[in-house]
Structures are given as structure tokens and as C-alpha cells.
């Protein structure tokens, strides 16, 4: 960094490099796809500790983590194992073509709708993107009339600290309460009968850049909530609240001294790189951990078998990694913690010293799976960095790590150390335009969750096929403003299709089939015992595919694009329904839902260049759609 005098005042120069090296694309059209030759193959970089032993047993969640399906959908992940599997069978590859919409409901909010509709006791609960309105619809009556509507009125200024659209990923019904978060950092529990709030707890502070977008996990009387704001230099945490009154039970920071991270004698990480005192301080430049991100805005699981909670930590900040030499613990990794005390049990870092915004917050599915000749308790986690990890849940040891999307930023995961093997050619630098880095900043997939069918043994991963050009730009921390320091331009990955639905076989470590999509698949998936998998596309199609073959079965064009989480439930009439929210947005959809100009390819943190044609295909919206078979 240099200093320069501006108006007679010394000012540190950070942008000089950006001024001298303008980027070549003025994004009005989508950049060309990255050539296949830039990518490593699965055979080149996939690793496992042992050969597949599928004969040993069937892959399935345990009954403790995925109890008998009651036909309801009380939490976004469906169950603690997070299979998003519905045992309903009415809709099948033969009947699916007859699906038709039976109910629509305007959410009155035209932003990215990422939430899962929740169905408990014949009532459907929906929380919208900011201003986070909650609707309760009575499914027993014709037209599903509104039972109540709750408007939490979050502080409007919170919109300014939401990095990637003002989304919300859904609430959960537990013990007569609908529990959800608001963009301005509150957790609110509403009485499902009265629609009045039972408690509300302010956790986040927008003046530090904190917001909350994640779906809280409610388990065993606790509510687990983490903050967002990894692009604004926040200090990430996960907080446990008492489900009864919303009082904070514990808070664990994801960086800083061991005492704050809740690391003590119980902590037994598998790899030596995670052992030591106060690594959350010593793996950073002085005090950088205080503004180093490591949020917890993704998915939290409760493991009823091992009595642990798991969640991933977000990217380190700023994105400009040259400003934070070191491993930057405990960012971009997975924590296992004791639910009672929050004490850490193990940690594994997917992307030490992340240079590409690869948050570790994606979903994990808890399964019993054959590996190395015996059944093992694992989690399966498709990470932003492009690898699908199979991790032993008790120890934190990585059993296999295989690329499921385009990867060239690393050359595989070294299973002896657990560390990714860095590709020096794709390391990011100040003033240097590093081209064709794969996966892109939003990852081989982002937050939108996969589903798992114990019938097929396949994981249905909705994801991206995108790469990027990246140049580091020096950046200063100003509380409450972005702390990014990177000029990013995204582009399609090999083949040009920006999205993929992959049915992944975690045992054999390979895809069973893939469906290519023009746009990133930014919706979740749901899979049913009828062997049908549902997902939505950003250009507004809600689709059903055969869960065994991937063959397209049915599709319906909705009003906007889809970035939400579909669910399937049994209605009051005993029949199977499928529900999803339309409303394009989120990071990838900001070019439609946000006040964004397509002429600036770096807009929406680099996403606009790759998505500049989305406005041709979909407009902003926000509607509940429910489908079923004709009767």
C-alpha cells in the first residue's frame, strides 16, 4: 500500500491497481465458457482412503436422525439428518406428468424467496425475503385462506448490509411456535395459533455489518442461529437460545481466542494442523480475526445419535487473501460441538487460507454408509470449493473428497493432512487478473440444499457450473461497509451450461446421472419415495425428474424464477402435495431482483457478468405454488 495526498490529507492508496488495469469485459453479454482443458478430471483429483465397498450395506439415515415420516414438513431440512426425503408415493414417474397447480398465493415481496414452505397440523407457514413477513395458511379450507400474518418490521437499513439479496431461508415449527430470523438480526418465535410473538431476541448488530438470513435449527429445546456478513468484516458466531424464552444459552465465535471459540480439553480435531492453542488468533495477522468473517449463515444439524451439532463456517474476510496471511482458523470449515455447552469437539477446514470465497456453510446430510468394508456414521457435504466430502462424524476424518463440479483452484485433497493441494496458478493476487478460476466464488454449489433418497442411495445436488476471473484489490475496514477487496467477473464453466442437477452416488464416488441447466440451479431439491426429484430453475420452470434416471417427467412455468426449497407433504385430504416458492433473487438472481445495472459486470460481487442475460428469461416475483395430481 502507498499513501497519496487527497485534498491535503494523506490517504492510503488501495485502488491504484484497479485504476491501472481495467478489466476487459463490459458485461452486456455472457462471457465465453471456460474450456474443458482448464479443468481437472474426477479421476485426476478425487481421493478416498479406501475402495468402495457397496456390498456391505445400504446407505440410509438412522431412524434417530430421520424418524418415520408423518407427512408434515416441520423444518426446512425435513429431519435432523437433512435428507429432504418425503416418503409419499402418490406422485411417481408414471403419474407425475399429470401434476397441476392447485394453489397460488402472492407473497407481496419481489425479492429472492429462498425459504421452504413449512407444513404442520394442516397449516402452511411461509417467511418471505425482507421484510420477513410470515404467513399462516389454513390448508383445510378451500383456497387455503390466511389464518394470520405477522410483520416483524425489521429495520430498513438492514437491507444495506445484506451482501447478496435480502433473502431468508425459512423457519421451523416446534412446540407450537414458528421460529425464524429477520434480516436485521432478530430471532422471533410466534405462537402458531394466535400469530403473536412469544419472544424476540436481538442477536445481530447491523452497524457491525451483521445480518441474519439462515434458517434456525430447533432441536431438543434449543434454537441455533448464526450471523451473516462475511463480506462486511463481521466476526462470525453461532448462538444457542433457549426455545422457551429466547434467552441466550451460549455463543461460540468462529475465530479468536480458544475461550471465545469454546475450545478446551474436549476438542479433538483429527488433523494436526488444527491442534494448538489459540489458533483462531495465531493463524491471522494481528487482530485480523476480529474482522475476519467466519460467519455461520448456512445449515446446522443436530445429530441425535452422537448428540452433536454440526455447522460450517463462512469465508474469511476480506476476500483479498494477501491481507490475511495464515490459515485463518476457524474459517471455511466444519465444527462439531456439544449442544449443551457449545464446546467444540472437532473441526475440519475445507479451505485453509481461502483465496476464492469458498464458504464452508453448505448443507451436510447425516448418513450411515458403507465405507472400507464396514458401516460408518458419516456426513456428506458438497462444499463450495467443489469437493464432495464424506466425513466421519465422530472423528472429523475425511474419508473421501471428490470433485462434483469444475475444479482447478486445487488439485485434490491430501487425505493424510486433510489439506487441499493448492494450484499456484489460481492463487489470487493484487493487481493481477487471474483468469478462469474454477469453481467460482459462489462455489460449485452455494447454500441451496441437496436431498438424499434411501431408496436410490443417491444425493440430488442442485449446483453451479461456473468459473471466474479475480483480481485482489487492497481494501480498508470501515465498520458496517463491505470488506471485500476483490474485483470478480464470473463466467460459465466448461460446456456453457451454468447449472447442473447431479445425482451423486456417495459410495461409488461418482455421478449416477446429470441434468444440465442453462442457469445455475439455485433452488433446493426434494426427493420422494415415488422416486421423483423436484427442483426449480432461475428461468422459472418447476421440474420433476425421475430419481433413478434423471429423465424429465414434468415441468410447469411459474411467474418468476425459482431459488427456493421445494417440499412435499400430505394434505388434510390425505393426498400428496408439492410446494415451492417462486421469486428469483439471491446472489445469482440479483441482476433481476436487485437494483443492479447489467452494464457493470462486477456488480453483485462479480455475479452480474455471468448472469446478464437472466432478465431476458425471468422477472422478479414472489408466489407460493402448490401442485398435486388431479382427482
Amino acid at each position, binding site marked *: 500500500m502507498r499513501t*497519496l495526498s*487527497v*485534498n491535503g*490529507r494523506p*490517504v*492510503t*492508496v*488501495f*485502488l491504484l491497481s*484497479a*485504476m491501472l488495469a*481495467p*478489466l*476487459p*469485459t*463490459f458485461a452486456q453479454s455472457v462471457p465465453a465458457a471456460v474450456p474443458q482443458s482448464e479443468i481437472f478430471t474426477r479421476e485426476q483429483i478425487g481421493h478416498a482412503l479406501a475402495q468402495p465397498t457397496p456390498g456391505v450395506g445400504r446407505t440410509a439415515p438412522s431412524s434417530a436422525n430421520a424418524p418415520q415420516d408423518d407427512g408434515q414438513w416441520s423444518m426446512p431440512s425435513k429431519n435432523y439428518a437433512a435428507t429432504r426425503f418425503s416418503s409419499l408415493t402418490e406422485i411417481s414417474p408414471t403419474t407425475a406428468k399429470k401434476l397441476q397447480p392447485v394453489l397460488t398465493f402472492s407473497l407481496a415481496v419481489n425479492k429472492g424467496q429462498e425459504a421452504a414452505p413449512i407444513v404442520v397440523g394442516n397449516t402452511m407457514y411461509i417467511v418471505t425475503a425482507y421484510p420477513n413477513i410470515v404467513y399462516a395458511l389454513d390448508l383445510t379450507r378451500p383456497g387455503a385462506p390466511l389464518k394470520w400474518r405477522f410483520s416483524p418490521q425489521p429495520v*430498513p*437499513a*438492514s*437491507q*444495506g*448490509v*445484506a*451482501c*447478496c439479496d435480502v433473502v431468508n431461508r425459512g423457519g421451523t415449527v416446534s412446540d407450537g411456535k414458528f421460529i425464524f430470523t429477520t434480516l436485521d438480526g432478530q430471532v422471533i418465535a410466534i405462537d402458531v395459533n394466535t400469530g403473536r410473538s412469544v419472544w424476540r431476541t436481538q442477536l445481530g448488530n447491523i452497524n457491525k455489518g451483521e445480518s441474519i438470513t439462515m434458517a434456525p435449527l430447533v432441536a431438543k429445546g434449543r434454537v441455533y442461529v448464526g450471523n451473516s456478513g462475511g*463480506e462486511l468484516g463481521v466476526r462470525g458466531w453461532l448462538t444457542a437460545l433457549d426455545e422457551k424464552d429466547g434467552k441466550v444459552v451460549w455463543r461460540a465465535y468462529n475465530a479468536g481466542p480458544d475461550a471465545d471459540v469454546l475450545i478446551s480439553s474436549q476438542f479433538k480435531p483429527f488433523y494436526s494442523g488444527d491442534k494448538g492453542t489459540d489458533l483462531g488468533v495465531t493463524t491471522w495477522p494481528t487482530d485480523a480475526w476480529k474482522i475476519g468473517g467466519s460467519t455461520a449463515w448456512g445449515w446446522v444439524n443436530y445429530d441425535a445419535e452422537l448428540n452433536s451439532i454440526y455447522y460450517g463456517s463462512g469465508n474469511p474476510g476480506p476476500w483479498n487473501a494477501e491481507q490475511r496471511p495464515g490459515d485463518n482458523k476457524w474459517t471455511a470449515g466444519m465444527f462439531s460441538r456439544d449442544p449443551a455447552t457449545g464446546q467444540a469437539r472437532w473441526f475440519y477446514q475445507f479451505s485453509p487460507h481461502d483465496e476464492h470465497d469458498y464458504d464452508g456453510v453448505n448443507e451436510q446430510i447425516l448418513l450411515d454408509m458403507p465405507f472400507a468394508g464396514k458401516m460408518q456414521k458419516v456426513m456428506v457435504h458438497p462444499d463450495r470449493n467443489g469437493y464432495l466430502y464424506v466425513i466421519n462424524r465422530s472423528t472429523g476424518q475425511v474419508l473421501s473428497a471428490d470433485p462434483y463440479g469444475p475444479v482447478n483452484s486445487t488439485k485434490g485433497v491430501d487425505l493424510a493432512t486433510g489439506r487441499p493441494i493448492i494450484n499456484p496458478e489460481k492463487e489470487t493476487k493484487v493487481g493481477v487478473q487471474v483468469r478462469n478460476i474454477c469453481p467460482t466464488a459462489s462455489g460449485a454449489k452455494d447454500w441451496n440444499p441437496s436431498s438424499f433418497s434411501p431408496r436410490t442411495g443417491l444425493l440430488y445436488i442442485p449446483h453451479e457450473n461456473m468459473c471466474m476471473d479475480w483480481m485482489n*484489490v487492497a*481494501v*480498508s475496514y*470501515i465498520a*458496517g*461497509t*463491505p*470488506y*471485500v477487496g476483490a*474485483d470478480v467477473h464470473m463466467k460459465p464453466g466448461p460446456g456453457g451450461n451454468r447449472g447442473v442437477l447431479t445425482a451423486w452416488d456417495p459410495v461409488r464416488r461418482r455421478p449416477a446421472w446429470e441434468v444440465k441447466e442453462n442457469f445455475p440451479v439455485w433452488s433446493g431439491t426434494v426427493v420422494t419415495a415415488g422416486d421423483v426429484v423436484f427442483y426449480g430453475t432461475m428461468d422459472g420452470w418447476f421440474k420433476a425428474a425421475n430419481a433413478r434416471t434423471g429423465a424429465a417427467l414434468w415441468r410447469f412455468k411459474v411467474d418468476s424464477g425459482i431459488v427456493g426449497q421445494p417440499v412435499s407433504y400430505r394434505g388434510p385430504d390425505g393426498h400428496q402435495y408439492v410446494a415451492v416458492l417462486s421469486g428469483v433473487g439471491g446472489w445469482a438472481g*440479483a441482476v433481476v431482483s*436487485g*437494483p*443492479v*445495472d*447489467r*452494464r*457493470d*459486470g*462486477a*456488480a*453483485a*460481487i462479480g455475479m*452480474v457478468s455471468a448472469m446478464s*442475460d437472466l*432478465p*431476458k*428469461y425471468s422477472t422478479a416475483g414472489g408466489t407460493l405454488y402448490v401442485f398435486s395430481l388431479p382427482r
Partner: protein
Amino acid sequence: MSSRFRANSVGSPIKCVGLTVLLLAGCETGVRPPAPVAQSTPVAPSTPVAPAEPVYRGVVDTALSPGAGRTLATIDPRAAKYYDNPEAVKVGKFLFGSMNCAGCHTNGGGGMAPSLMDNQWIYGGRLEQIHQTLVEGRPNGMPAWGGVLPDDELWQLAAYVRSMSLPETLAAQGSGNPSQSPAPVPRAVDEDTGWAAPAATTNDYSETLKGPDGPQ
């Protein structure tokens, strides 16, 4: 959002149609500081009324004006030196990066915050209005910078922000990121009288979006 064609009519007569005294009063509402009331009796339609003195009316965000009346707007004296000033937009551009404006607004294309390069303004696009936005902040997530940065720099930032959507700046775009070669803000842009686009202007921001299979 207000369009770039503002309700300002610098140099043109106040068209305050005095249908009723009540409406006449409407001619002067929202004036800050209070403008001298030109007359106390209703004025016949289309009678031009010369103002006693130029009126600085502060920030006006709307093209609607009750009774079809309009108050005179002049350039805020504080803004004057930032027009036609290449240095101001250059420093403004530098500050835009170093103060993290770019983190929310990118190179003017927006993201976490609205685009600033489209010449569509929620809170007004006159230099003084942009300055006011910077000083006060705005409710939906725009931080208040008044007192955080010296006033001079807020004006320079305002000049750069205004420059982003100038045809000259957009034309200098070349193949790089937008707003990298900001043109100075002509004083004339804040003196435009317009309800309509001035004749023979290149200032046409209209856009046709073709569908994926639309005519090429």
C-alpha cells in the same frame, strides 16, 4: 424513482396556476428555506411571475408539483465549484473506492445497493441532492457520511456519482469496468428545464430488452 427529467425550471417563469388560494399556497410547500411568496393574490392562469430573487429550494425529489406550479431552483452556491471540474470527479472516484462505496455500489452497477450509473434517482440526481444523500444517509441501507468525511470530499463524491451516468462517462467506457473515466459534471445538467428530454440530445437512456429468441 424520479427520472432524470426533473421538475426544475431554472430561468423559466413560475407557472403557478392560481385556481384557488389553497392551490396557490401549494405552490410554495416544501420550500426550504422558505421562498419569498411572490404575491398574495391569485394569479391568472399563465401569467408569468418573476421571482423577487433566485430561490434555493433544497432537495426536491419529485416531478409532481401541485397546482402545476413550480418553484425556481438555482444551483446551490456550495455546489458551484464542483461543476465542470475534472479534478473533483477524479478525486471522487478515488474516494468512492477507498471509502468502500464500491463495496455496495460496485463500479456504479450496484449490488448490495442501487445502481448509480443508470441516471434513475430515488433521492434526486442534482449535485446538491446527491450531497444531501451522502450527508444524511438514506433509510434502506445507505450509511450517513456527514461528519465522517470532510464536506469537500462529500461534494467530490457527489460529483463522481453524478458523472457515472453522463453519456460522456459511459462513452469513455471502452471495454473496461464502467465509471473508470469519469467526465466532469456540466453545470448545464442541473440547469435543465426539462419535463422532456432536451431536443437533439444523446441523453437517451431508454432500453429495449430482447427475449432469448426475440428479434436480433
